């Protein structure tokens, strides 16, 4: 067993000797997460909006003007009937509706803090969250301008905002985009790093010729592979928490579940990805081929994981195919733990399927790896 210790130490020495490796392991994933995270969650323009101005006072017309003066929103219609608004959203004629109630202007001037309602189609969670944010900004700006014009009003309501937005998303009720997307992105990064690096490190030793040297040592196949892979398992694990931590600092997301549970699940998942790395290394003859193969595997894992395309929206045979995708399970698990704080009872099915798949992948890969040259 001490032989494994020497293998692991050597691997760590090599990893930390190359400065790029440290960057690849810990800095790049954080940057990628930020870029991807904002790319999939932000910058929504030209949201189609229905205006329901039931007040039709000077103030309410000012608000409507504020909404039409921005390229965030395109006003596509005026409609006061809530049922019609719902149908329009359903028919994709509009993504959102702004409802200004009767007597809004009068109540506002009396400092009664009247409600304005914003209805948003939650189907595209990103756009929904962002458009509510924009609407809030526009209304707040308008309210502050009002307060400056009428100092009396500001004085009365010094500590409470004149205008408060109470969000209610229609369909997909509590879908917040970053909360939903960022854990998914973390899974993707974790997968790439652990699979690619373990594959590359094995293929590189074969390419350079040192693997042949290792194969004539009395190291058993198990010791050789464990010694090569344990460092990547450990590093991927640390990286997982670095990225997870950074994500919570950078994005408005909160982890609702248990870290211990998530760690265990991540550990089980990493067996799969590192097993895939070994598999790739037994197929690829060069580092380029290993890169290409990793990319190929990655595309399959990613497209079939439910991150971008909900699995329920896929044709049946593709849905069945996703059952072979380990990322699908971990994606579901991390979202459950992250968003709902689900306990292990609820993750049981996904967990055993993921573990079974991981064990299979790992076993096949290890058996394919021979202590002989081909």
């Amino acid at each position, binding site marked *: 067993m001490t032989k494994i210790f020497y*293998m692991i130490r050597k691997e760590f020495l090599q990893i930390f000797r190359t400065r790029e490796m440290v960057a690849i392991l810990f800095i790049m994933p954080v940057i990628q997460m930020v870029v991807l995270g904002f790319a999939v969650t932000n910058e929504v323009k030209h949201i189609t909006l229905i205006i329901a101005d039931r007040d039709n006072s000077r103030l309410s017309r000012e608000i409507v003007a504020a909404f039409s003066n921005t390229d965030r929103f395109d006003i596509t219609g005026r409609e006061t009937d809530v049922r019609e608004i719902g149908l329009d959203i359903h028919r994709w004629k509009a993504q959102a509706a702004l409802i200004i109630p009767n007597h809004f202007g009068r109540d506002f001037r009396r400092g009664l803090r009247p409600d304005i309602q914003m209805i948003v189609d939650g189907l595209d969670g990103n756009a929904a969250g962002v458009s509510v944010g924009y609407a809030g900004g526009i209304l707040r700006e308008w309210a502050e301008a009002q307060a400056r014009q009428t100092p009396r009003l500001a004085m009365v309501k010094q500590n409470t905002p004149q205008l408060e937005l109470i969000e209610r998303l229609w369909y997909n009720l509590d879908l917040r985009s970053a909360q939903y997307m960022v854990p998914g992105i973390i899974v993707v990064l974790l997968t790439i790093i652990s699979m690619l690096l373990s594959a590359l490190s094995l293929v590189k030793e074969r390419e350079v010729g040192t693997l042949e040297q290792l194969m004539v040592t009395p190291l058993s196949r198990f010791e050789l592979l464990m010694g090569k892979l344990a460092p990547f398992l450990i590093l991927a694990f640390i990286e997982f928490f670095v990225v997870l931590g950074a994500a919570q600092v950078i994005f408005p997301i909160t982890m609702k579940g248990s870290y211990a549970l998530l760690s265990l699940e991540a550990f089980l998942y990493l067996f799969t990805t590192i097993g895939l790395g070994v598999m790739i290394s037994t197929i690829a003859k060069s580092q380029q081929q290993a890169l290409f193969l990793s990319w190929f595997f990655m595309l399959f894992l990613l497209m079939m994981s439910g991150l971008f395309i909900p699995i329920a929206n896929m044709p049946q045979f593709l849905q069945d195919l996703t059952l072979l995708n380990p990322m699908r399970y971990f994606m579901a698990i991390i979202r459950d733990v992250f968003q709902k704080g689900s306990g292990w009872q609820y993750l049981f099915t996904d967990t055993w399927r993921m573990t079974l798949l991981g064990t299979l992948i790992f076993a096949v890969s290890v058996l394919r790896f021979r202590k002989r040259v081909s």
Partner: protein
Amino acid sequence: MNEIAVQTQNLTRRFGKFTAVDRLTITVSRGEIFGFLGANGAGKTTAIRMLCGLLLPSEGEATVAGFDVYKSSEAIKKNIGYMSQRFSLYDDLTISENIDFFGGVYGLSPALIEERKEALIEQVGLGDFRKRLTRDLPLGFKQRLALGSAMLHDPPIIFLDEPTSGVDPRARREFWSIINELAAAGKTVFVTTHFMDEAEYCHRVSIMRAGKLIALDSPGKLKESYGRNNMQDVFVALVNDEDPRPEEQL
């Protein structure tokens, strides 16, 4: 261990339809420096890999240190040292780290590793360089270091695949003086080379062509029976398929 270090009987390896090693039959005894010559692609590396347990033979028998290559390749690995044709140390580790690593995976105790490391560094003359990255060493030093690392566990048999290619003449001499010392200490050295002056140092030389063994004897006898003054001429004659021997000898 018995007096026979390596023995093969019709050892054959095919890659698809191509036969890289064709019915090789040799016996190498303990303490012998056994040279393996042959043009590029003759099958030397393939033969050595089979003997080291790295490659399964297609046919034939072979034992190394008394162990069968089919059944006991792991036992063979404990009894041999091997320097592959490509550089076999880690370029991005220091000299000291490389030795620690190989000593460790061969299962030596830390104290023994330390002791052998000092001896090796001393022998190669690398005292001041132990913290240097291996990639920064001149090739001659690298190869001597690689030889030492392959022998940390003190194996009775050592396989060297072109250990001196690309090495300058003086470093080659030093390398061969180590080989001679090893043989004198009872080690069996199995070495391939493209240098005919090195062939002269071997106790016996085998010459391969297209996977087949075409000559096997001491350098003196080979020169005598082919009527040439040096191994260079013997080799060229044999590899070019000239056969100067009288008919009945074939």
